[in-house]
């Protein structure tokens, strides 16, 4: 447990220290969401209709953009060898690194989402649900993404392949997440969608560490 926290702290330190772009994911998220009204036009009704979906798609892309170096940097400089030889099972190391990724992308993204919601004239009664859906759903993005990042860690230009591998797996999270916020916006009960969203995240938490660790072991050979 202590080793996992040490790894988490190290990853957080590295993200903020070394041009790895601590909050660049959030900056991308805000810019991408900002482009939507410029493209669609400022008419409130049209924006409100698509706000929840747009924010979720932007969150997905922001997560994806920050994933490609999740394991690659450590594989390239040999740190992954040291982690694999450490006191922690590789599965737990994956979990710690995915947690660090979520803390630097998923969480800040959830925090700024209400501001963007206002900008996209998302109805006020949906704001809480939007935040809740992002809070429940974004961990799944980091976890599922970790599998793709582990698979493509050894490839020099793996970013595009990573997107192709991971985006289809993001579909359930996107559907239930956007659905929850959308239902709240139209005055319907969002509870079921949120429960399904939580189920997807739990499933990802149960499966992804093992899949990612298996992929890393192949990369370490």
């Amino acid at each position: 447990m202590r080793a996992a926290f040490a790894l988490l702290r190290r990853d957080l330190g590295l993200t903020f220290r070394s041009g790895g772009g601590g909050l660049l994911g959030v900056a991308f998220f805000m810019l991408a969401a900002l482009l939507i009204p410029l493209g669609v036009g400022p008419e409130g009704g049209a924006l409100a209709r698509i706000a929840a979906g747009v924010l979720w798609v932007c969150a997905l892309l922001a997560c994806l953009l920050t994933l490609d170096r999740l394991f690659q940097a450590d594989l390239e400089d040999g740190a992954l060898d040291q982690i694999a030889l450490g006191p922690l099972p590789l599965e737990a190391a994956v979990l710690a690194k995915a947690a660090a990724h979520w803390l630097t992308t998923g969480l800040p993204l959830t925090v700024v989402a209400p501001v963007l919601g206002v900008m996209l004239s998302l109805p006020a009664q949906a704001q809480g649900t939007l935040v809740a859906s992002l809070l429940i759903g974004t961990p799944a993005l980091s976890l599922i993404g970790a599998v793709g990042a582990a698979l493509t860690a050894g490839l020099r230009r793996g970013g595009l392949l990573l997107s192709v591998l991971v985006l289809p797996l993001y579909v359930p999270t996107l559907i239930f997440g956007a659905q929850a916020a959308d239902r709240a916006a139209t005055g319907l009960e969002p509870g079921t969608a949120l429960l399904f969203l939580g189920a997807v995240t739990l499933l990802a938490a149960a499966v992804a560490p093992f899949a990612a660790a298996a992929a890393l072991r192949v990369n370490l050979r």
Partner: protein
Amino acid sequence: MELVAQDLACRRAGRTIFRGLGFAVRAGAAVALRGPNGSGKSSLLRVLAGLAPAAAGRATLDGLDLARDGEAWRERVALAGHLDAVKPGFSVRENLTCWADFHGAPRARADMALERFGLEGRADDPAHWCSAGQKRRLGLARLLIVDRPVWLLDEPTVSLDAASVAVFAGVVAEHCAAGGLALAATHVDLGFGEGAEVRMPAPGDAPASPAAPAADPFLGGDWG
């Protein structure tokens, strides 16, 4: 404690890198691993670290079997590969303290290791200011932090100056005197003593595969 390898073989990407490798290293011994470039020294060290699977043969360490007890095995070895795992964004000291935390070792050990490798003056500098030799020393200093009995060293002296090589040879000697063992792939003399070396089997030494066609007197030219 004894590290024993019997008839080890390694295959990568469908190609046999080496086979029929056997040796034994007893606790307290430092052994040099010799062989030309491409003879599989690094691959052997990765196999012995439990990171890559052996294609054949077995290795044991104190009753542990490499193939069966991977988890326990990996907790006894330290690998200093030709990659230093130095993070340029961290300071020199942080590069060691993060591993000390990870391994649950006291942070004071980081300063001790820095001093041993003559890096105490740079402890607070960013690691990306370090020269190649200093980065290598920083990578080797991690060996003193993780505190494992078996050291697997892959070209540890590359880009080190003569003084640093001597320091490192002293560190290895201390580790062995304290009951550890070390296996180092190296092309230089680290003062391990006469005969303390393992030679990688040359590709020609491997037994011919049974599928090889029998000698043909026609092709051999024996028919005059």
